[in-house]
């Protein structure tokens, strides 16, 4: 699994990254926090596409979940008992918010599954419907419910501060810091990624899922219920999109703005492709996409000296918009097979039709 085929590009910048991690405080945790919604969205995409369903509605699922989480947390606050955990500053409304976000995204996933598996509608149109409807519904309800109550909000999860004995460990200290100096959702991303990677490639469920995504007919002949497995995977995938949405309004910020996902669902799609439909690859892609922009900005704040000065100036000279476009450019290049090649599961996008029962 050579998910790290981007290494030559990254290798050039490695020294510079090391320098920035030492000089710019918190850059590593910030990069992971930026990558979190993208990586979670990508996990949703992987769950869908590995089982043979295209999902371009991740953006809409994320947006609806972000809104539902914010509203549920904010409006349930006065009715809930006082309860606060030391860890992550967890309160009852925040937990309610996360649950609401996840359920919302799962409901939209169920709609997507119904349209693309049962109705066998065009799966791309189904995704478009989810995006359009989510943008409209959240915008409509936002103006109707949230705008008249500007003080509603339940705050955010706080991040865990790892003790300095851990972060000061040489060489790997900053990596630990990156994954530990986070709120609960961002911190759990790495767990989800590793778990899903293992399950997908080392478990019976994973083998079946991949079979259903590559050749559903063959899967059915060995006794796998294609329709049921696709349904289950698409709906479970919704959990990740829901968590991504919850991250936006309950962990990263404590407010909701119309269209606040700002294309993250589509960057997640890019991360799926660049990561070659593997969870670890997708996390790597998400980290690469977000660190490119972060490095570009950090170079401006702390210009490097010595032998890195030239590279630093080069990076600083690149306009910010280039970093914004980078994930999309990389995806096109990878899809076109110019550098490496990324191939989707063979049955993605094809509705499955069971052979007629011999009765």
């Amino acid at each position: 699994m050579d998910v790290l085929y981007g290494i030559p590009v990254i290798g050039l910048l490695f020294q510079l990254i090391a320098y920035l991690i030492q000089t710019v405080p918190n850059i590593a945790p910030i990069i992971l926090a930026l990558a979190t919604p993208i990586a979670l969205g990508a996990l949703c995409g992987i769950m869908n596409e590995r089982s043979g369903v295209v999902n371009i509605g991740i953006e809409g699922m994320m947006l609806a979940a972000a809104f539902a989480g914010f509203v549920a947390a904010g409006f349930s606050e006065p009715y809930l008992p006082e309860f606060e955990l030391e860890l992550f500053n967890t309160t009852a409304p925040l937990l309610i918010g996360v649950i609401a976000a996840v359920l919302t995204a799962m409901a939209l996933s169920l709609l997507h599954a119904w349209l693309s598996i049962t109705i066998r509608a065009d799966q791309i149109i189904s995704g478009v419907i989810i995006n359009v409807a989510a943008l409209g519904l959240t915008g409509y309800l936002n103006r109707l419910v949230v705008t008249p109550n500007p003080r509603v909000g339940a705050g955010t999860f706080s991040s865990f501060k790892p003790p300095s004995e851990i972060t000061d460990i040489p060489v790997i200290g900053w990596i630990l810091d990156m994954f530990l100096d986070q709120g609960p959702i961002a911190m759990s991303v790495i767990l989800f990624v590793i778990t899903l990677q293992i399950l997908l490639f080392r478990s019976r469920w994973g083998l079946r899922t991949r079979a259903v995504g590559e050749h559903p007919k063959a899967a059915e002949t060995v006794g796998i219920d294609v329709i049921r497995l696709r349904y289950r995977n698409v709906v479970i995938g919704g959990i990740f999109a829901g968590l991504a949405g919850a991250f936006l309004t309950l962990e990263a910020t404590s407010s909701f703005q119309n269209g606040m996902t700002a294309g993250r669902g589509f960057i997640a799609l890019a991360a799926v492709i660049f990561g070659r439909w593997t969870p670890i690859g997708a996390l790597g892609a998400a980290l690469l996409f977000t660190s490119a922009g972060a490095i570009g900005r950090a170079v401006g704040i702390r210009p490097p000296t010595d032998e890195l000065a030239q590279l630093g100036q080069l990076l600083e000279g690149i306009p910010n918009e280039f970093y914004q476009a980078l994930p999309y450019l990389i995806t096109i290049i990878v899809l076109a097979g110019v550098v490496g090649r990324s191939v989707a599961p063979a049955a993605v996008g094809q509705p499955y039709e069971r052979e007629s029962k011999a009765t």
Partner: protein
Amino acid sequence: MTDAGSSVQQELEQNPAGPEAAAPQARIPPPQSKSLWGRIIQVSAVPIAAVLLAFGVGSIFILGSSLLTGREFDPLLPWIAYTSLMFGAFGGLNPIVDTMVAAAPLILGGLALGLGFKAGLFNIGAQGQFLMGALGAAYVGASVADLPTPIAITAAVLAGGAVGAAYGFIPGMLKAFTGAHEVVTTIMLNFIAAAIIAYLVAGPLGAEGFAFARTGPIGNAALVNVPGTRNLHIGVLLALLAVPIVWWILERTTFGFELRTVGANPSAARYAGMRPAVVTMTTMAACGLLAGLAGVVEILGVTGFINTSYGTSVGFDSISVALLGRAHPVGILFSAILFGAMRAGAPEMQLDAGIPVEIIDVLQGIILLFLAADILVRRLFRLRVAGTGVDELQTVSRSYGEQAPR
């Protein structure tokens, strides 16, 4: 609900052929009607039913959401909302002009999507092509602002169209040569277009002397009004003219025939001596041209300039327009007018009934939902007519997983 679900199941099971046996999802063909009216009713029944159903569901939604605002419950609220929407869109000459001005880019954008559908291409990149066309028209328009009006307008329109066509050509070329699926590449190109505009307008193509980054005034390149009207710019005529032209190309030219053949069955087209790669590239460029012209009309006719964060919903509305119009130029014309009317009438509705304008997007989503799940619509209205599934579309998402080079 269980009843509807089982009927769906039944309908699905009536279709005995496997996916390989019948590449375009083999729905039972309805009886063909001979007369023109019969045919029109046959193709438009499901879209019209979907729109009516969407407004019905929308009124339940409006009633339900009005409870959240804490105002007094008014069972007539949906009626008030829809009548003020109608009034805002068609109640007098000025509202009608506003509707047509809002519909013009949607007609062009819808044609851009519809042409792609006919060729088996799902051009989600209308958004990006619109933006690039808008940028081209805004910049060239500002550069030729002092030339005589006919020359200035022609130059700006051609520039915008050319930039849009070039931007549409990119995903076509990528698909033809590398097999990269156009849905993914065009989504990516939409965001790249936004970044390009943010960079160019803030930098090389921006005008000086304004409080924010934008292109210069377009002066004489602004589209003139149709004689005798106040706001009806000639871009609307351009859009209306595009409808018969696209129809003619599709139905009466060799290229149109090749385009439809490639859309229906690329292998058969290749076997018949056509070159699907060339057709794909040309079609995508044509789609880009149309979507770019939508941007041109919007910039030269309405806004007059472009800024770094220029946003639009035309690109995605066009998808709905083309699907509702069943990818047929005339259908696209009518559905573009419907969506234009909703956009133009929505502010009036917000004013009169206190319904946020975002309800338009909700309605659009519901319309699309009923079009996608047309089995339900046909069942509810007991229609014995063809489903909406744009038949050409069925090659689109099915080919998503196959990225073999041609």
